[in-house]
């Protein structure tokens, strides 16, 4: 199949990209600035355990999020496990969470000693709402709510607060996808009892690996500082909690600080990429780039292609063609967690029609530092042509 005079790779042509274009951010900060900080780590021999760079990073992140407390962790997964382990009600067994989300979530819940109870999500925000979560609380035994704020919009922040209050359980937000985004004029970070963000290399602030908790609760912040360091009190040799090694090391903190200084450049790059996609892929086709909710200033960390349910080529068809051409587009939260191998047998069996439908509908398109505007334009043209010639494309996919 030829598109713009070029045989697509699926049907034997040379790939559009010889080096694959990924979906992760993978920004490289100023190397000399990082090396300067690395020198400080080596010269001071402070590598972990509450070093000066971790403290500086926590201060800067707190200012950036406009919250009182930031507690860094070795990664976002440890932060969520520590929060749920500490906050979830000991007298109840299950944590409510969305099914249309990241595959790690049900595992985090189990590391925290609880079982996941999957809920459906809102068709537009793809997040939990009071209405989608409440029916799953009817049989009781709810220990906490784990909500996810997505790249295109937040979950039902106020409604979930109310529901958590009614149930007498903590509301924890996984806001990994909402880093650097704003909602109603303010950054994320102050919702629920705490929010969690990631410093993984594929996210906007690259700390190699890393994560952090934001909260305005002083007592909770102190408990998180204890728990990430084996439960030790920060002021005495006493152990106060069941703890873990959740510490962020100083070299990762050095990287995250350097990356945070350049966040505007990363955000501008993301805006440029998504604008290049949108300039080609309009609204009237059978596919579109997902728009943020009104009130959301997005981070544009992901470019989500929505493919109509009855599209002749279908989401998976697009993925096949794009991947063959070196544009490493990926399915987005597919399969939904309640139907995946990440679902523990005891949590299976829920009927969640919105999650089922959404899971087959989205592709994450390449973006981040490895993708240029020209790349995005080329990929967008390919997507648009595949949409226009969907019948021919679907026969090519079936044959290939």
């Amino acid at each position, binding site marked *: 199949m030829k598109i713009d005079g070029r045989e697509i790779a699926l049907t034997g042509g040379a790939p559009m990209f010889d080096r694959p274009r990924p979906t992760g951010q993978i920004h490289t900060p100023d190397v000399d600035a990082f090396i300067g900080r690395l020198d400080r780590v080596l010269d001071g021999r402070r590598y972990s355990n509450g070093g000066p760079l971790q403290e500086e990073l926590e201060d800067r992140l707190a200012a950036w999020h406009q919250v009182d407390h930031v507690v860094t962790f070795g*990664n976002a997964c440890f932060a969520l496990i520590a929060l749920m382990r500490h906050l979830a009600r000991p007298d109840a067994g299950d944590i409510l969470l969305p099914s249309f989300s990241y595959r790690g979530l049900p595992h985090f819940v189990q590391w925290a000693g609880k079982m996941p109870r999957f809920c459906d999500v809102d068709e537009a925000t793809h997040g939990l709402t009071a209405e989608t979560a409440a029916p799953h609380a009817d049989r009781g035994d709810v220990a906490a709510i784990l909500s996810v704020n997505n790249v295109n919009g937040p979950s039902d922040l106020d409604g979930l607060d109310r529901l958590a209050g009614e149930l007498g359980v903590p509301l924890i937000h996984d806001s990994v996808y909402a880093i650097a985004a704003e909602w109603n004029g303010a950054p994320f970070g102050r919702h629920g009892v705490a929010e969690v963000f990631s410093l993984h290399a594929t996210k906007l602030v690259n700390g190699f690996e890393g994560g952090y908790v934001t909260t305005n609760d002083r007592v909770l912040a102190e408990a998180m500082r204890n728990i990430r360091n084996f439960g030790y009190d920060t002021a005495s040799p006493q*152990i106060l909690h069941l703890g873990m090694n959740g510490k962020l090391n100083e070299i990762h903190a050095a990287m995250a600080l350097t990356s945070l200084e350049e966040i505007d450049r990363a955000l501008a790059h993301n805006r440029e990429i998504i604008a290049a996609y949108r300039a080609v892929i309009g609204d009237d086709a059978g596919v579109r780039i997902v728009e943020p909710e009104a009130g959301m200033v997005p981070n544009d960390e992901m470019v989500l292609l929505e493919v109509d349910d009855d599209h002749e080529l279908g989401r998976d068809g697009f993925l096949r063609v794009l991947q063959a051409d070196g544009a490493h587009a990926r399915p987005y939260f597919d399969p939904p967690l309640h139907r995946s191998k990440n679902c523990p047998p005891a949590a299976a069996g829920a009927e969640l029609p919105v999650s089922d439908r959404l899971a087959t509908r989205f592709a994450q398109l390449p973006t981040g530092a490895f993708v240029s505007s020209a790349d995005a334009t080329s990929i967008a043209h390919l997507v648009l042509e595949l949409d226009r010639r969907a019948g021919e494309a679907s026969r090519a996919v079936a044959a290939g």
Partner: protein
Amino acid sequence: MNDPSPLYVGQLNTPDRDAARREFRTIFERRFYTNHGPLVAEFERRLADRLGVAHVICMTNGTVALMVGASAAGLTGDVITPAFTFPATVQALSFAGLNPVLADVSPQWHSMTPDTARAAMASTSSRVAAIAPVRMWGRFTGEEEKGFAALANELDAALMFDAAHALGAGEGDRLAGGGGLFEVFSFHATKVLNCAEGGCLTTNDDAFAAAVRTAANFHDRPDDVDVPLRINAKMSEAQAAMGLLGLDALESVLEANARRYAHYRDRLDGMPGIRFVDHADTLVSNHQYVVMEVEERFPISQAELMQHLHNDGIIARRYFYPGMHEAPPYNEQDWNVPVTDGLCNRVLQLPSGEMIANDDIDRVCRSIEAVATRRKA
């Protein structure tokens, strides 16, 4: 004395600055920061070679390595583990869903032995699913390992070693790393091999290694197997870069540690009331820790000696304090661990690592000598 700089415990072995800059610049050239990068793969290969084990799986830290290993072993029930250990050992087993049963330790070696493990079984009526000894202060003996293997076999329990202290430790040409189902090591900055934070799991069991590799991240990879629980335990390329630089220097670090340790012993051996844990006689030690007991007959207590040393700028540490039987949630139960109780109030760890020169050791010893001749109050 005019305000000398403080002396700390912990290895804090630091690579050459230019070599570190070069290694990190290669990471930025590759733009490969984490998720199964080339430096982690090289670090794992070189560790496997150094330790003589089939599989090394590097992770965020040693605690997480123990969490992942204990979970991937698919166990439920009781695990026998010592009360006298760093909190990581017991807490990791709890996170993995096991129920720790705390055993006392040998007064001579400070470690759980097959006999103290057996004695601890009196505290439990349920099934013992696992035994998790600690290679305390890096002590490894083939005889003890055989004893644990026999006990595990008799109970049909899994055997896993916390070898956080024991990188490079062994007996003859056998090194820690191949014992039981798996062992875990720490590469925290205070250990002989410094990844800032870091650790690994070692095993000779191919199927178990595949389970651990699957459990330690959330990616779809061709060699994945079914595991009950996964976690992000990935070591980054930055940590692996530090580890590779540390491996280059490891043999000279071990030699220098042995020299420092010998110097301490030359100065303090024979001092009434001071007892060293001598695990280096016929064994290979990494001399990571300089550990001594402040006995009852010493003029002042361990806590007082620690304060005295701190006043002289010598930041000696009580290891381990408190014992895990006194830490929540384990203190909800009464444990019969008298040796552990005694050790928590007797053991001191003295400054070590590459920042400590012979002059510094002399300073530490003078400070101890200054109180050793006092009359007991």
